[in-house]
């Protein structure tokens, strides 16, 4: 057969679809990236956010989700709102925010909230071999995954430094998904994204999730776990320290019925 392998034109190479297997059988991220670079001609331009050297900086996201894990009641409404607006179904496994809890545990370690951090250094974007994970510069620099480019290699899932990983496996489509601050929510009548609304923020009955534009502290895991409680919360009797006296209880203590009885005279 004339030409053999050489007959594969540069154009054909450029159009080659890389299957999930191409990456998985290569045995990991580095091998997969190498394979992609080695077989991709220069003119078949990779997406702007293709694998890049670690020193490449990315524009910071213009929006973040911060949360108060002591205020969360674990109802999972945020998770279900996330899966509903993005996928049209209600599913904890398809939610891009995860709430984990231990019914038998001790407050505050009985519950963990895990939304995507929109990292300043987005490891998922850095390591995605196809450019499916990218910084959306047209939409507030949100770190997103373009599902049409995702080949399901799970690199972003393996590379996410958070525990649990904030890139989520969609087992229906065999692709990775992640929080896009509700930019792409086909099952919601509201506009999402950094300049719009977020389903988890809007639906949380405890108002334990908040959208902010200021970049949270990246050096500490707790940088996103903030105090969103005010005196109204304390007045429910929900304190995080036994020395705290809710204002309403302090006020009640001033009423006569709560005044200590005078000591009987000796």
């Amino acid at each position, binding site marked *: 057969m004339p030409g053999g392998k050489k007959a594969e034109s540069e154009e054909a190479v450029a159009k080659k679809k890389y299957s999930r297997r191409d990456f998985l059988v290569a045995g990991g991220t580095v091998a997969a990236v190498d394979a992609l670079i080695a077989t991709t001609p220069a003119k078949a331009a990779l997406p702007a956010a293709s694998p890049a050297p670690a020193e490449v900086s990315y524009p910071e996201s213009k929006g973040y989700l911060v949360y108060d894990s002591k*205020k*969360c*009641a*674990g*109802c*999972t*409404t945020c998770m*279900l*709102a996330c*899966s*509903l*607006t993005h*996928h*049209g*179904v*209600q*599913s*904890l*496994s*398809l939610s891009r925010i*995860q709430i*984990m809890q231990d*019914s*038998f*545990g*001790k*407050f*505050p370690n*009985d*519950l*963990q909230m895990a939304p995507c951090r929109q990292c300043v250094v987005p490891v998922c974007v850095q390591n995605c071999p196809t450019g499916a994970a990218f910084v959306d510069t047209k939409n507030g620099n949100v770190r997103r995954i373009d599902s049409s480019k995702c080949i399901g290699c799970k690199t972003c899932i393996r590379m996410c430094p958070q*525990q*649990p990983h904030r890139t*989520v*496996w969609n*087992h*229906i489509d065999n692709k990775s998904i992640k929080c896009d601050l509700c930019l792409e929510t086909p*099952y*919601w*009548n509201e506009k999402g994204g950094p300049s719009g609304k977020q*389903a988890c923020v*809007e639906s949380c*009955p*405890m*108002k334990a999730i908040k959208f902010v534009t200021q970049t949270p502290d990246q050096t500490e895991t707790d940088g996103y776990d903030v105090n*969103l409680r005010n005196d*109204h*919360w304390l*007045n*429910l*009797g*929900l*304190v*995080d*320290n*036994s*020395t705290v*006296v*809710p204002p*309403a209880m302090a006020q009640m203590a001033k009423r006569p019925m709560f005044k200590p009885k005078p000591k009987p005279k000796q």
Partner: protein
Amino acid sequence: MPGGYTGKILRVNLTNKSISQIPTEKYEEFGGGHGIGSAIFFDLVGDQLPFEAFDPRNLIIMMASPFSGTFMPGSGRCEVQGLAPMLYPIEWFGHSNFGGRFTAQLKYAGWDGIVVEGAASEPVWINIVNDKVTIESANGIWGMDTWDTQEEISRRVMPQLKPGEWAELSDSYTTQVPAVVCCGPAGERKSRLGALLHGPGSQAALCGFGGVFGSKNLKAISAIGTGSVPIADPKAFMDARLWFRQFQWDVDNPREPEKFAGRGYSLISGAPSGGNVTNGSLPLIPARAAACASCPRGCRMRLASADSNEAVCAGTMVVSVRGNQKLTRQGNDMMHKLGLGHWQLMPLQGYVNNLAQRGLLGKGKQIDIDLPFDHRGTFGFWEILLRKIAYREEAGNDMAEGCARFAEKYGLLKEDLSKGVIRLTYWGTQEHYDTQTEVEWGFGSLFGERDLMLHMMANYPLHWMAQSGNPYLTAEEASKLYTDAMVPYNGDPYMIDYGDGPTGIYSDSKIKQVAWVKHYEKFWIGAGGFCGWRWPMCITNNTADRRGPTPHAEPRFWNAVTGKKGTFADYMELGHKIYTLDRAIWNLQGRHRDMEVFPDYIYDQKGRGSILPMVVDGKWTYATGAGRTLDRAKVEDFKTRFYKFEGWNPENSYPTRATLEKMGMKKVADVMQSKGKLG
């Protein structure tokens, strides 16, 4: 299948260890939850009735609803049905339910419910991981308390699970832990007090289904899934959920906090955490509000001390350790661990003390049990008492038969019940609120099979609003607003007249209220999986006009999830249908109108009263009705008119063929006729 359903119901036969499916579609007309459960029960064993609760033919039916696993507010309950060993004098086909996340996980695993039949030859538990269902040996688990059981089963189901990480379940993933429901040592010993426990403090406390688990050698059921609940109209569902926010307690900026703030008001306002009554004095134990799946209220708590976690109300207060909240929390935890149902333990422990004071109970006494009464009210006393009941030691063996049967064994029941020494007012379950005044609770229980246990019907929004001393509506305003929501009987304010005048407790208006309560109970609470601490919401302090989401929210959410187009009235009529089916089952068990009578003390002794809206001397006011007794003849007349209203024969309370066929239940009518029970 329409949205909300997974399409299949799990059927497990423990006798022959077979596992099969029932297509949900076959029972879709009954909505879900209680409705489908009743229909399945009738189909599988209705023509074999009567038989006993511990007979292997008895079923344990645990049904989810189309709302289960969704963010429908306050729909996280699991309905449990079957013949109920707690109930007296006949083990009526009963229902109990518990909160948490069991039905959510069941739905994510792909099941609309579970039907368990037969009895295993050795202790087992049922393991549901998505589509894979296995019957596992309970070797090493049987004998454990309910907490250890759940921990051990979680470990066996998902040994790969590490807290805070994703775990793989056949190429899909979850961060969640298995949802386990189990019986404790009490249930293993077929105690009629036996509760089902899910989590540390969520009980299915009524009916004694823990004992039925024990009779089947069934220790637990575990469910975990990674699937989805389909939604017919996702956009409409999301819009509805956000619309509903106006009816919730605004945690950051509540309406009129000076009036409604504080945990004491949370019963009415829906403010978080108020269900745990053992962490309200200084110094407070650090805690969070802990919600059941999908609940915007979060009435439970999880504490830094991890005691009384997720328990509420009676689950935090029945075991009362004198002057010590910490030991009270731990005492109630002990009750949960042993799997003792709090709502039966409450009258029983009071009766034990009463009998001891009468010299009838104690070491060497007629009722022989060694209890340290010198230390009554201490943790130590409670521990000894609870263990003797749970493990059936000494006279604890008789107590495990439930309060009514315990009293009956010693020849005390008739007189003590008649005099109100024990207030087992409704089929062996404890009187809850003043039957002579809060009559829809009394009638609703009497015309049911156990304590109504539905606080949001009128008890919280009306009684406790007034009880607060600062009601946000006048009695007249309340009568109008509240009854405006009571479709299809709306427009009759006297439905909530609790006076004893012509428009009051024996009136045709009251008949409509009782019917409304029962129909709402059967469809929205029962078939919809609603929480009785959240629904219905006819009025609320959280809106400017004080109108609640009922009756608009229920069909709006239901239709968005399922794709159906019913009205609130349509679904209430389905509730009527389910109630009539339950009535038919009770009739097949032996229920007759002559049995539906209150104990004598309700007619002969003056009630303590319960502050509620009443018409007194022609004017609406809040009054207590204290000192009232019910009139036997008027109650009997009320029954006659109520049965007619529901389409049942007033002579015997049996549903008529015309009623059953109009409801599409011809086969029920045929079975009733074959048994001589057709009205």
